[in-house]
């Protein structure tokens, strides 16, 4: 499991993912203030920025297995701190 990172607004962290055929999950925990948005981007050709708004204290997770061994940049697109980590 990757180390947990606290991201302030505008900050980002880069994670690796498991190779094709294996799952990797991104976990996010919104702080008590809410009004946060997590963004994640697969560092390959022609990928868009994915975004998910988060409410105060809301835990959230999503599969980033589509990256299949590529890097994924996770960023804080909102206005309050979030904690992020992966199961890889």
């Amino acid at each position: 499991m990757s180390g947990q990172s606290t991201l302030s607004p505008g900050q980002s962290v880069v994670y690796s993912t498991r190779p094709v055929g294996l799952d990797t999950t991104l976990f996010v925990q919104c702080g008590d203030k809410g009004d946060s948005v997590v963004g994640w981007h697969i560092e390959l050709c022609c990928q868009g920025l994915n975004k998910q708004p988060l409410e105060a204290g809301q835990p959230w997770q999503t599969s980033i297995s589509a990256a299949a061994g590529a890097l994924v940049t996770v960023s804080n697109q909102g206005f309050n701190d979030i904690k992020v980590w992966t199961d890889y």
Partner: protein
Amino acid sequence: MYDPIDDFFEEHPAITAAVDWAQGASAADWQRVARSGDAVVHHMQVLNEQRRHALRARLLSDAGRAVPAPADSDSDSDDEVASDAAALLAHIRSVFEAAGQLPEHVHAFLTHLSSDPDGVAALRTWGRGIGFSGPEITWLLEDVARLDHDPIGAIAAAGGLDPLFAHAYTGPDHVRAGFLAVDGPQIPAELQALVSAFRQRGATPSVFHLLPAVAGLTWLSGMAGGEPENEVHAATLDVMVGALGQCWSGRGCSGKVLSRRTSQRTCKTIGGKSLKTGTGCYPV
């Protein structure tokens, strides 16, 4: 009255300065640039063919459909894929090593190449020639634009070429070839910095961001003693010289840029005058 051709004309010094510099450098170095530029084209063509098959196979597999074998499965072993990707990186690196320290006006020329509409047209022709799809070329050029048309500068500011080459994927997964990757979950600090710096500007770091400069330097090599032979370069030169010919028609521009040391191709018509073929091209 505003005339867009005047803008083009004003940017002309960046091109002539770059060619002046190139023609003052070692012909042997430019021959190496030309050879490496040709090799980049070859390996990109192979890699793109493999990569496109891999992308299609992944889509079919995800949809639960049968995946056809590659067209030339004999040459598609994992080892060969890895060696193609590694060779591509080596030849890209060789282009920059042979060209040496690039002066400011060469950076200006490369910036001009990817920002001017005619330069973009040339790069699109080149990109298609090396096997990229239209959307992939658009993605690359938009990424380069996000880096102010100076990916070399952006890479240098984010740690330099070494971490880029060190972490560019060259393994058997075609989809990741040329992009940054690591084995395992640990991300080295220099890789974290490089990716984050690019992401802040909305770009994805890859060795492909160096390709416009490879095209530009190979084009310069054709004017400075090198002789790129791959027809993909020739197609690019046609677009470039054609565009410059429009600019220079009746403008009294220096003909130096048009003086290409090549004996293998028919020169373009510049300003309504046909240039000589044979031992070289001459300014009108």
